[in-house]
């Protein structure tokens, strides 16, 4: 049921050119962050085998980021949409994506988090994130048949995700086998609950942002209508203004 709802939401994403661009860029950003974080983690771990896996994983994530960026660029060329940031008014999603809370790599962890979590919990979290990512990307893949290059990119990514799930699982099993089962289970449990809380928060932000924009639209046609009419009647400010002011330190404390 949940996946049907998700599929419906994702279909709306891919059929709207602007949302498609934002989604591709947001995927690219998440993958790039993931690569950065995994690179940091690879420098911290003692096990040489795990380090090799993490480095390879980091490279995969960056490659995925580039694939999404290329897809975004192709889409931009086809549609003429500007890149993020070119258009000040269209960046409401910056907030709705909850950037303030730094939904970083893989949707929920921050770069360098291995220092905070420790090796076992970190790998548990990567494992849970990769499992979830594989499911989400498979859903997306099923909806982009009309874009063969993007479909091929998803296919490649899904293949990589299998490897990411497999090597993290291998290490979790290895740690279980040496008496660290409790640690592994606690890590998995904590990762799953973080995902749930994160998803709930994102849902809240998304609905909140839609409602706020609707209210602002209503306000525009009611409360602001007389002010708008007055503003149009008023004389515009002159284009050129003489200043003669120093940009001294004292003036820096004001936000105006």
């Amino acid at each position, binding site marked *: 049921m949940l996946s049907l709802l998700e599929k419906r939401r994702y279909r709306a994403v891919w059929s709207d050119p602007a949302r498609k661009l934002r989604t591709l860029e947001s995927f690219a950003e998440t993958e790039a962050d993931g690569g950065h974080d995994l690179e940091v983690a690879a420098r911290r771990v003692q096990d040489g085998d795990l380090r090799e896996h993490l480095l390879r994983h980091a490279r995969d994530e960056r490659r995925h980021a580039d694939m999404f960026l290329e897809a975004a660029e192709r889409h931009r060329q086809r549609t003429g949409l500007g890149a993020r940031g070119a*258009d*000040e008014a269209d*960046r409401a999603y910056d907030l709705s994506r909850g950037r303030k809370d730094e939904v970083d790599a893989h949707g929920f962890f921050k770069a360098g988090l291995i220092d905070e979590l420790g090796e076992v919990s970190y790998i548990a979290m990567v494992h849970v994130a990769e499992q979830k990512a594989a499911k989400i990307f498979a859903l997306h893949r099923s909806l982009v048949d009309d874009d063969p290059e993007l479909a091929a990119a998803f296919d490649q990514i899904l293949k990589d995700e299998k490897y990411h799930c497999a090597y993290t699982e291998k290490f979790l099993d290895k740690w279980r086998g040496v008496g660290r089962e409790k640690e592994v289970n606690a890590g998995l449990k904590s990762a799953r609950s973080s995902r749930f809380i994160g998803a709930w928060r994102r849902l809240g932000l998304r609905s909140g942002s839609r409602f706020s924009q609707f209210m*602002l639209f209503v306000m525009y046609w009611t409360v602001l209508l007389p002010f708008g009419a007055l503003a149009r009647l008023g004389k515009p400010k*002159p284009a*050129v203004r003489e200043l003669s002011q120093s940009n001294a330190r004292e003036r820096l404390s004001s*936000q105006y």
Partner: protein
Amino acid sequence: MRILGISAFHRDSAAALIVDGQVVAAAQEEHFTRLARDSAFPTRAIRFVLGEAGVEAPELDQVVFYEKPLKKFERVLVSNLRAFPRSSTSFAKGLFVWLGDRIWIKDRIASDLGVPADKILFAEHLPAIGACAMGTSPFEEAAVLVVDDAGEWSTTLLARADAQGLESLVEVRYPHSLGLLASAVTQFLGFAPGEDEEKVEALSAHGSPRFADAIRAWIRDEGCLFALDEGAFRFNFESSRLWGDGFEAAFGPPRFAGEPLRYQDSDRRDADLAASLQVVLEERTLALAAELYRRAPSRNLCFAGSLAKNRRLLGRLMAEGPFERVHVSVVPGKAGGAVGAALLAEEAGVLSRRVCESGFVGESLLGQAEPGAQWLEGDPDGVAEVSRRLVDGERVAWMQGAIELGGLSGQGRVVLADARPPEACGALLRAVQHVEPFLPCRLIVPREEAERFVELPEGSDAALARGQLRVAAKQSLVDAAPSSVMADGTTWVQVVDEHSAPRLHAVVRAFGAATGTPLLLCTDFKLRGAPIVRSESEGLDAYMRSTLDSLIAGPRLYRREAIPKK
């Protein structure tokens, strides 16, 4: 004093850390997120600059944001009201962003960084960009010209700077903006406004300015400066279409992205429009420089803002402007605002010192080899290997030292090729996935040979060393490296010497010794749509996705066939 400067929410978000009047680290958010021109709050860049200097956020003396948020909010609100009722959609979207996030930037900085609110300051947008130009210049005093798209209200600023600081003299206010005029034409031609103005500049080389009078008619003299005819543009209420109906009446239908570009043979409408815009921007900027010289007579000019990226305009400003010496900001755009904002909070006198000579203040190569690396024995910088491979006709990606700030890599992350073959430029750009056939490559020439090939404007050494100018090509260049010369007879040139770019200079010298032609073509090491590569592993990924022949990163060589397959 440890001062963190931050720019965000427009384009090229960045963070810069200044310790005792020197820039110790600076980075753009795009270096880490891999989203070109990323405008998000630069969390990752801040993390990097603090880490680079070993400073914890609570130890900062000041944090300076490069803009006055309430002043900008006022501009957004008033502009939307004045455009009533056409601004209904942009009002809801814009106000949502402002009320939900931007206006609380002080709280956000305080909570994210854990610094007390009284340590958080706010510079003004254009003065911050101008201060960056002054701080990176060799001048003790100078006139400062900033021509940008838009700051809070100001779009153009005439100022002067010396040991006492920066004094603003006169400004042109939104929506009267040469930067936005350029963006409107860029969008009309099917490119991304605010990003692809450089492509429009390159396109202008193929056209003649037959529409210049139509554009001039939308700009009137206002006092000693200028004002736009507001009816010709739609900046105030529709960012997805910045140009008004008059554009179609004057130039015909707009070009949409993906449609063929009209710049060749008998139909050159798009190139002609680009050339017309170029002429008008040059005329207006030269007039601004003349007015600034009248108000702030000085031998020196510091130039910054979005128009300071226009290489042909810079060439004319240096050749025809009233100032003897012109310094173009090392980071002319929004990212420079992070450096400039921090400088404005520094003690008096800092602007008359040079705080940063180059943009080399980002993350360095870590010295960690990627799988498949071959170590270059006795060649720590890769100079000999790069030269040898270029002589063999290879196209080589070369990474060395730190990533530079400002969206242009002068030498740290570049792709090089032999300049002599007639199709060299197109082939090099295609190798890194750039598809517009009219885009130029940068010509690298050693200082001691430069006058043989190009006309060098007086007082432009620093700008030439950073590759910021387009100058007239001599016949010897047309003969030796035809693909480096643009259709209007100019070339985008970087003149290197053993001080400004010792390793690149050594490479082009060695190439010249072996081939008799000391000329190389160069472009930034980035794939289409992505920012310049940062780390060695990113470089390796980009190399594998390109059709370049080899990658040299510090003392390591990568060849496609030696990279292990998964």
